[in-house]
């Protein structure tokens, strides 16, 4: 099994939003699986991490939730991205790219001769 990673603060919300953007409305289980798969099983989420994060996004108005029938005829709560959520995703993604570029630039720098 691959090395396990901790979910860095703030990144989980981004992962959830991105997942919903890519896959459309989805239930908690689906989101969980998608995150695990995308991370190549380096991240596993327990319910106590996932569901409070979903609720927080809902409270902030970035996602909506409604009960629906799932593909194999189960009742499940589906989360969907809102317009505000889309904007938030774009903003956060941009910030992450910038941060990542910056860190990469720093870490990639070679020792300079004076």
């Amino acid at each position, binding site marked *: 099994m691959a090395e396990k990673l901790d979910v860095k603060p703030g990144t989980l919300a981004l992962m959830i939003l991105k997942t919903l953007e890519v896959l459309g409305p989805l239930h908690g*289980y689906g989101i969980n*699986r998608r995150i695990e798969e995308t991370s190549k099983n380096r991240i596993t989420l327990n*319910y*106590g991490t996932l569901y409070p994060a979903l609720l927080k996004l809902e409270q*902030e108005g970035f996602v909506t939730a409604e009960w629906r029938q*799932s593909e194999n005829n189960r009742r499940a709560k589906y989360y969907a991205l809102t317009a505000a959520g889309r904007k938030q995703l774009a903003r956060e993604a941009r910030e992450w790219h910038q941060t990542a570029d910056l860190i990469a630039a720093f870490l990639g720098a070679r020792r300079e001769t004076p």
Partner: protein
Amino acid sequence: MKHLRAALARITGFFTGHRQDDELREELQSHLDMETAEYIRRGMHPDDAHRRALLTSGGLTQAAEAVRDQRGLPWIEGIAADIRYALRALRHSPAFTTVAALTLALGIGANTAIFSVVRAVLLKPLPHKDGDRLVYLRHSADGPGGANVLFSVPEIRDFREGAKSLGGIAEYSPFFSILQDDDGAARLDVGLVTGNFFDVMGLSPLLGRLTRPSDDGPGVPPVMVLSHEFWMKRFGGDPAVVGKQVKLDAGTVTVIGVLEPAPFFPNRVDALLNMVISKHHLSALMVQGRTHRMTEMVARLAPGATVEQASTDVATVDARVQHEFKDAYDPGSHYRVAVIPFKEALGDRARLTLLLLMGAAAFVLIISAANVVNLTLMRGVRRQQELVVRAALGAGVARLRRLLLVENLVLTITGGLLGVILAIGGVSLLTSLAERYSPRANEIRLDVVVLGFTLSLSVALALLLSFAGSLPKEGSFASAIAAGARRISGSLSKHRLQRALVIAQIAVSVVLLAGAGLLTRTISRLSEVDTGLKTEEVLTIPVQLLSFGGGDFAKILAGDVAAKQGYDRIRGEIQALPGVTVVGVGSTLPLRGAEMGLDVKAEGRALAVGEATPRASLRTADPDYFRAAGIPLLKGRAFARTDQPGGGRVVILNQVLADRLFPGEDPIGRRVAWTGDVLRFSPFSGDWRTVVGVVGNTRDAGLDAPPPPAMFMPFAQELAMGGGVVIRADGDPEALAAGATRIVRRIAPTVPIGKVMTVAQYKAESVAPRRLNAELVSLFGILAVLIAAVGIAGVLAFSVSARSNEIGIRMSLGADSARVQRMILKEGGLLLAIGLVAGVGGAYFATRVMHGLLFGIAPHDPLTFIGVAVVMAAIGILACWIPALRAARIDPAIAMRAS
């Protein structure tokens, strides 16, 4: 925006939580089902699949909890749960809860009540505008009656011109007048004030207007401002009183306004008038007489000036004036002026008593708190197992601490609420005490500030209690649980804390008891004081027939004749009442201070250099006065019917004065005279008078003061001043009160009659505030001792139950029950002994501050200290006995089996 929205969602969530719980459970369950299905699809056995799914979930309950925290307001939900839990826990140990809450109620109640008085009387800002800029000037001199000699108008003028740090100086002359209206006659205590008085004092009218500089001087109409209290009492708060004409003995005056409620100093006043009402106050005698001191002085500090600067300025002016007018300041009397912040002056008489009561109440609180801490410690030990288990199950130490804090808050706030109920009763009692000491007693209130004080006291106690008990340490749960309940009987250090608390309780109780003992003995010493009177079963009727009204001399003299005839008729009619033996009339009733004192000299005797001029109270008496009042005649004769106006001027001295003027000589037949500059302003002559008798000393300046020197003149030869009637009877003089009062009322229907009572009653009333004070401190002392006794018994009982195993072993090894009992008694006795020693030591220092409240007894009176120690020891031993007996009854077999 995002935060606001989230906050709103949370608040909604807080209220809709229960409905959402079901939904959440369903959601989590569906997740679990889907995951299980997935594992089965991959080929797992359904049971394994379910287990695996549960494992990865991290626990449904934990998840639900985490979501709930995110959903609502976990902080409030937590507190609400904590309060529910605290109430349940407290209900589970009703004995602990009751004892702790009641103990706290006593401590908090006593402090709340006394703080409300201290705040009103000493601390609260004055109602006057910028009241902290007001100062009172006190002019004093050595010798009897010298504590406050007031100022003369020229003296005030000196300060007004010379003391630049005083921005404004107001004059206030205490005066009294008789009010006549449809409700009858009433004595009115008034102040004659300068027009700038209210401006300087920073007071505003409630109705109408106050006096102003245009009300000063002669030729203006007399006007009157009512005090708020008098307006309510006499006029029922009727606003129509403004503009009304009121008839005083000095003339008719117009009420121009009602003053806002404000305290007065040094005496309470009913109304304030401009000076014009008293001819005397505008006369040359008053305005120019440097020694004619009848005026109080209140000043406002100039902007930027301090009390220290004002004191320096005033001292400089005073020194210059004393140098310039040597005749007016007898060097032996050491005249001096003190500048005192007005608020301090108002609280002066009450301060020591109140601080003593505050201290006593604080001690009671310390003892109560110590007791509750001890109870909490013991309960904590019993609960330790429960707390450890809770912590191990995931409650977390921080959460447990919060839980305990909430529990203690519930406890102390309950105690505080009960305390406030106690305080409501206490405050009315304390107000009656404070009235005797302070003009601000009517400001005493259980207001927001006082309740805030109570609340902070309760919260502080809760914090204290929460840190007294220790919680299991993180990471030590397992070992604590393994050790088992029986093993946890509290650490040694906690035992030490308990013991230290018991010792402190005993020590503090001893200090309180010592204070109570000293005050109680002061009261008994005071009632043992020889008043100098042969009997106190004498009825007195204070009634002043002569009106000094407007200070118009011709009028006074005319009135004097009528007044003397009135007294003759009263004397005659009362004499005729059945049972009456003697009736006397005099200017001053027995055991009361004379209104006036003057310098005296003896013929042929010069003062030594630096010797203060002798002063004596000026009193008049009719021939029967001494016999009626029970004042013993020591030498010579009493006054006779022949000592009439026009006859030879004669006087009777009391023993102190005779010894002072004629040390070692027979005063009979010698001559004395009133003297001094002030004589010019009095209606008394400075002629030589022959001493015809000497009477015994009486405690006219209070039971705790030495008898003041007094010189009596025949009632018939002088102005019929003040005073009243003194009645001696065969039987109970009180039975005559109604009949005698009726006679006085009929003969002098327009004259107010003072409180009719016996000398014994007057004496009891004069010590009443001290008695109440002593009773309060004693009450605190008794409370303290009881609480301390409960404390020591409780700690020992706990020790016995913790050691029951050990005691069982000892007994099975041959110790008999007497020995076990001794062992426990020894344990308690040691605590008691240390506490007693510490207490007596503490009392030795603490009682020193009470010096000013004691009479006839030293602050470390050995007899009181021994008595207190014995009482405390006896009660302490009794308290130890109960747990010791219990220890002796332990059945070794049961005790050991239980472990």
